[in-house]
């Protein structure tokens, strides 16, 4: 549409994936007092200095940018946990470790806007980059096992990984499906069957006139 004459209208842009990730809840520690916020997307607060509160990530980042809070990085973002996850990813060929669906976007937003709130920020960032790389490599090798099928479970894959594989896997599975079900192939074959029909039954009405 507008701005998207792209045929892949089903794809989510990077901005849209980030938008969805911004709704994930995260803990903040405010440094000011503020009444509850009665938003369309839900009620948050009241906010009191030094009292932790759960808010959507977009709100956490907005408050952080305005110097009103510290963000508590989620538990899965600790060096210990990420080290364990990375080992797990390396050990198991097929399976993916449990991470939030939006782990890539959440961590990027926090690195961009709340770096001083993340202990061992550089370590954490490099661990997440490593985990990402291992997982993407695994996604690629898992794809080799795909074959003609209508449904495949992809446990623990993240939003970003889904977005990466979607165009390719979608097309590949569709090709497998067409290959297995030649009678169901639309468009391209419709044209040729119409031609055969014309050739066998022969052009009718308009030839008679």
């Amino acid at each position, binding site marked *: 549409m*507008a701005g998207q004459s792209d045929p892949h209208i089903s794809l989510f*842009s990077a901005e849209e994936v980030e*938008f969805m990730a911004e709704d994930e809840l995260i803990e903040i520690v405010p440094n000011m007092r503020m009444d509850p916020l009665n938003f369309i997307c839900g009620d948050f607060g009241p906010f009191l200095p030094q009292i932790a509160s759960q808010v959507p990530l977009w709100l956490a980042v907005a408050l952080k940018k305005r110097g009103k809070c510290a963000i508590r990085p989620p538990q899965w973002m600790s060096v210990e946990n990420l080290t364990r996850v990375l080992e797990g990813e390396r050990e198991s060929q097929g399976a993916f470790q449990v991470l939030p669906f939006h782990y890539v976007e959440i961590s990027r937003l926090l690195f961009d806007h709340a770096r001083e709130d993340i202990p061992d920020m550089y370590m954490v960032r490099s661990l997440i980059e490593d985990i990402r790389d291992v997982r993407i490599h695994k996604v690629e090798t898992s794809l080799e096992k795909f074959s003609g099928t209508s449904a495949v479970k992809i446990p623990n894959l993240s939003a970003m990984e889904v977005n990466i594989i979607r165009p390719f896997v979608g097309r590949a599975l569709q090709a497998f499906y067409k290959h297995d079900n030649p009678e169901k192939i639309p468009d391209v074959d419709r044209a040729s069957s119409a031609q055969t029909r014309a050739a066998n039954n022969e052009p009718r009405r308009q030839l008679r006139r």
Partner: protein
Amino acid sequence: MHGRKAYQLVKEFAGSEKGHLKIFNDELLERVAEECNEHRNALQSLIRKMQEEGLEVQTARNADHYGALVHHLSLIRNKRCLMAYVYNRAEIIRDLAWKVGLLHELPCEIKEKFSDSEEQYFKDHSKSLKMYMSQLSLDVNVDMVPPKDPYIKVRVLEDLGSGIILSDKSANFASHSMHFLKRTDAEQYIARGLMEELIS
């Protein structure tokens, strides 16, 4: 050779930069349409010949039958190419209707690429979109990308002067000047390439 001109027409569209239009190729389109009518004439004269020879057109399988079939299929192929050419252009025109049709006249450099019918289609579709929005009392051609902070920093790329009054301020939008604007105010100018957003 059958279908060559039609193929050129489609190729011309496919060869243009994505989302951009070349000048409407009226001449080539007319020549393809002419070719269609030639096919039609050839097809009819073959049928007539078969009828004169007393052959049953529905069942006879002689050279003339297959000749007629080739003309029929060539005509259809030409039609599909013509339609592909104008239909794909129509998609870009609709896209433009979304981006600029609701606000302003088309810039001349785009307008000159259009045929008269295309210009009319652009106006018609813009109007259909406007009707939809007014029935709904909601503009759907803003907020094209997910929101960030309501205020964004922009740089003016082309001198807009001080005549523009936005929802909460007016300013002198001289070329290269920078402003904090409401995103909804700035979006239309960004879409038209008159401003750019500055990412912090």
